[in-house]
């Protein structure tokens, strides 16, 4: 229990939060890795998921890619990347991006493919082009599923970004890895608590985003909320 007291004392000391290797800087690094990796993953996964979900072509490709990527041990890919391409952020970020792809791809694809076919047909009957159908009907209706995919991807990437420290990068993993290497277990605990707290906060934010994006609720403020009493069914 001594480690716990030391860890809490460490977290409560302002001096430990400031400076180039302070907690605040490490937290910023951790968020930076996470954001870049997720951005790259979204750039690949979201358009692919939208196209496949809209055209319904290449469903097998999605299932295959998702399963294969999930089975790939990120830890190994990351360390192999560093070994082959040298230290630096790029190999780590590529490995983390690969980790984010399956959840985002699965969420986007399932979201778009799951939109009520009647709504899609109605949009076509109104004369919308395929791009309009995708942008105005399928994406808004699939948004909760897409953001749900982002939520899962974020959890995995935040957790795994800890490993970046093993490849001599920064982030909150530094405390964990150094703490264990130098037998300063209270530092390892500081890292663990900080990563867990960060994951919980990000998950809470994205859960709120999923809630806000529910179609037909006007929670995103896209159109004025209809008065319940005057709605004709």
């Amino acid at each position, binding site marked *: 229990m001594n480690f716990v007291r030391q860890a809490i004392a460490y977290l409560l000391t302002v001096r430990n939060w400031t400076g180039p290797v302070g907690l605040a800087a490490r937290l910023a690094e951790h968020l930076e890795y996470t954001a870049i990796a997720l951005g790259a993953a979204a750039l690949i996964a979201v358009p692919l998921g939208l196209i496949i979900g809209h055209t319904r072509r290449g469903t097998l490709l999605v299932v295959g890619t998702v*399963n294969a990527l*999930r089975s790939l041990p990120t830890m190994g890919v990351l360390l192999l990347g560093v*070994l082959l391409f040298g230290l630096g952020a790029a190999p780590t970020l590529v490995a983390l991006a690969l980790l984010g792809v399956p959840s985002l791809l699965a969420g986007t694809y399932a979201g778009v493919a799951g939109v009520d076919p009647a709504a899609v047909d109605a949009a076509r009957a109104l004369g919308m082009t395929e791009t309009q159908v995708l942008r105005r009907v399928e994406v808004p209706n699939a948004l909760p599923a897409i953001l749900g995919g982002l939520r899962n991807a974020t959890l995995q990437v935040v957790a795994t970004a800890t490993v970046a420290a093993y490849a001599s990068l920064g982030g909150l993993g530094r405390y*964990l890895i150094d703490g264990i290497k130098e037998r300063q277990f209270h530092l390892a*605990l500081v890292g663990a608590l900080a*990563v*867990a707290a960060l994951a919980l906060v990000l998950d809470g934010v994205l859960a709120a985003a999923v809630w806000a994006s529910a179609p037909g609720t006007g929670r995103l403020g896209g159109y004025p909320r209809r008065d319940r009493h005057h709605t004709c069914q």
Partner: protein
Amino acid sequence: MHYLLTHLDDARALTVVHLRLALLPVLLGLAIAVPLAVAVQRAPLARRLTTATASVVFTIPSLALFVVLPVILGTRLLDEANVIVALTSYTAALLVRAVLEALDTVPATVRDAAAALGYPKLTRIMKVDLPLAIPNLIAGLRVVVVTNIAMVSVGSVIGIGGLGAWFTEGYNTDKSDQIVAGILLLFTLAVVIDGLIVLAGRVATPWTRAVR
């Protein structure tokens, strides 16, 4: 590839440890999640509490849990028990949600029909509700097993056994061959075990393929 072929004994020993650390929690998690889901399904407050706890547990990064658990359990940092408890928690957290969702989809008419046939409640749950939950359970299990296999390898960062040791060892001794061998082996393991679960699911739900 060469590394794998010249270190077969090593590979076998590490695979056994890896699978024990990854799969024992799956069995334990199942044993916790299924009865828990059945118990809280019709109790709104307990159900809310369970799903809320489950989502918080699932959010905590594995490496963090590997480090925090020794403090809570009083185990040593490198004790296998930490990994087993951590992965059991994840497994139970994910499966309890899957089983609850599955139980919710059992049509009321089916329940009533079973009751009319004279099934006592427990028998109905065992013979009607849970079998109908198998497809959901299988979907949850597939995610859990693949994730667990990956999580055990992350444990090698802090020195916990399994095939992840080939990653850290290969990295520290500059042997990319060893890392590639580890990736290949883990990838194959995940694919094979995933396939086995799908197969088990098909065998357990013959009615989904019945001729109409």
